[in-house]
């Protein structure tokens, strides 16, 4: 893992890889993240940079790899997945978050989005299934409850080496 991190740094900073920070543009060149529709959110969530430029240090990089590895527990994975899906960072998944989530899933172009009637129906169904306290948003525990019963989450939530 250290090797991959230091490959992302420009040559002159490789000696200090432990303390250097890699800018976001470099992180996004990783093959696993390149094709991922949540790439920006992943960088944002794992970055501990004070300047909010979403750059990642080696510790952040390790964090990211460990969460996505096969040996992470589903609690950790679902916790981070919740943070990744929470587009406005308000601690709950409301309708706008869900809408952006579905748009990320179906693709970036205009023709790949669902129609607004379909989107309404879909969000209505999702909230019916997961919103236990019926407040119109999904909080962390509701999300973890739903995800724990989903058989595909454990399989597809992992990155390979």
């Amino acid at each position, binding site marked *: 893992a250290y090797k991959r991190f230091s490959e992302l740094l420009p040559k002159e900073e490789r000696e200090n890889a432990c303390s250097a920070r890699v800018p976001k543009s470099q992180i996004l060149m990783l093959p696993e993240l390149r094709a991922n529709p949540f790439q920006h959110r992943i960088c944002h969530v794992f970055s501990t940079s004070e300047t909010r430029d979403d750059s990642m240090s080696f510790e952040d990089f390790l964090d990211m790899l460990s969460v996505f590895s096969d040996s992470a527990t589903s609690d950790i994975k679902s916790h981070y997945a919740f943070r990744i899906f929470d587009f406005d960072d308000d601690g709950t998944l409301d309708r706008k978050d869900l809408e952006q989530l579905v748009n990320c899933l179906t693709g970036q172009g205009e023709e790949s989005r669902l129609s607004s009637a379909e989107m309404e129906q879909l969000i209505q169904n999702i909230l019916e299934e*997961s919103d236990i306290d019926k407040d119109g948003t999904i909080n962390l525990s509701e999300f973890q409850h*739903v995800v724990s019963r989903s058989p595909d*989450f454990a399989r597809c939530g992992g990155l390979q080496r």
Partner: protein
Amino acid sequence: RDSQQRDTERLSRWKKWRRTSSKSLKKALNEVKGLLSYLVLWKHDIHSIEGKFGTGIQSYFSFLRFLVLLNFIIFILMFSFVTLPTIISNYGTFNSTIAYISPKNTDDICTIYEPSGNKGLVYFYTYLKDLLSGTGFLEVTYLFYGYYSIDAVWIRIMRYNLPLAYLLATFAYLALSFLWIIKRSVEGFKHNLVHDADPFQSYCNKVFAGWDFCITDPYAARLKHRSLQYELQMDLQEEKLKQKIAERSMHEKLRIYFLRIFTNIIVIAVLSGCFYSIFRVTVFSQENSNDTDNANSLVNLLVQYLPSIVITLANFIGPLIFSFLIGLEDYTPAFEIKLTLMRCVFLRLANIGILLFSLWSQISNCGSDKCKPCGYNYKLYPCWESDVGREMYKLMIFDFIVILAVALFVDFPRKLLVNHCSWKLVQWFGHKEFEISDNVLEIIYGQTICWIGTFFSPLLPAIATIKYFIIFYVKKIVLIHTRKPAARPIRASSSNFFFLVVLLIGLLLAFIPLGVSIARIPSSKACGPFSNFNTSWEVIPDTVLQFPTGLQQMLFGMASEAFAVPFFVI
């Protein structure tokens, strides 16, 4: 890391040592696991397929890998318990001697068996023909049942009872396959149980767990986006359709039920048509392939392969008819897929059953008094187990040839045509999708043949292993070069379980012909290890009667109903 370091300063020396040793142990275990993963067959190939095409198709390839391993283990089982002692005794190693079977109180006429191994000078292509049809020189090899005419093998002072070993090895490989499939399907079953118990969760599952994080290729990512969009739209449409169905009027309901009964009648008619044609063709082929006038001609080879050809045609045309009919029946899309799949599974497996049934009707055909001395048609089938083994062998070889031929002559030209030819018709034809269910049914069909055939032809699992090994690479190349992933992806968790359930059905279906051959039909008196017994099953009661009486009593007690039923239930 910082918090861990702070903690370690506070601990005593003993705990520090424990912690460092457990860390290094974990590291060592991880290294060992990493090394072991190199041994897993095709791990890298399957990973790259998963990355490019998603987990649905990957589950097909890991299923194929499972079958290769299963067949290899079955082959090792049969080889070490049946073939190896025979080989050892034939060459006299380990001071072993053979006790050949001496025919006792049966009419001599039953024991006439002259396998026509090629004698004298023959053309080279007879070898090729024999290889394809399992006659001639192959008949007198270890490949078929008829060659194992040994009663016992004496190694130094130990007596190795070959008939008993043959029968027990058969039971062992059936039980092994059964247990292994059950073990693999238990995990899938748990997932399905949870999944089905909460049908209200399908949308959340698709949205939150829909993205496959293993995808690294941007082209595959675009396809995954499209497939997710398609899947979500399909689900929403299906929900609307269900609402519409619930609001149907009485008149419409009657019309639809009438239509469904009609299409089911057509399905049954198609199935009976297939079965009848297979029956007639098998009878025809059996009657005419014994005609030695033109024994070496191509026509004779074609006649011998006629049942296989007809079965393959039926397996190809049947699903086409079924998918046409299902469109008329107006079910929800998910149910349509399931029903078509069930019909195809039934068609494929029943075809094999009908073939075997027609073979038996031929073998036990006692038109006049042909059966009296031996219990089976000894004139045409002096060694009927080898004949059945030969049919299974032909089916397997033909299946393999068809898969290779389809890959070579249909898929690649199609790709070339679509890529270079811009006619509207050809473009509408388009790239073929990788139909997972069709491919899976193909290999399950092959595996059922292998299970049935192994009793009659002990080296068949080796052929099956090599066949599936080659098929893996062929399918992989076809996949990478010609197809685009299916627009309707089947989810990995449910598809694994589905494959294993159908495989289990195939295995249970294989039990029936084997049970009937072992227990009901008299074994050939002219060849094979069971010529001294009435049926193959009789070996076991015979051996049990030779045990000391105490053991006998215990075994009889175990076999009695009062004990066996609760034992099996638990």
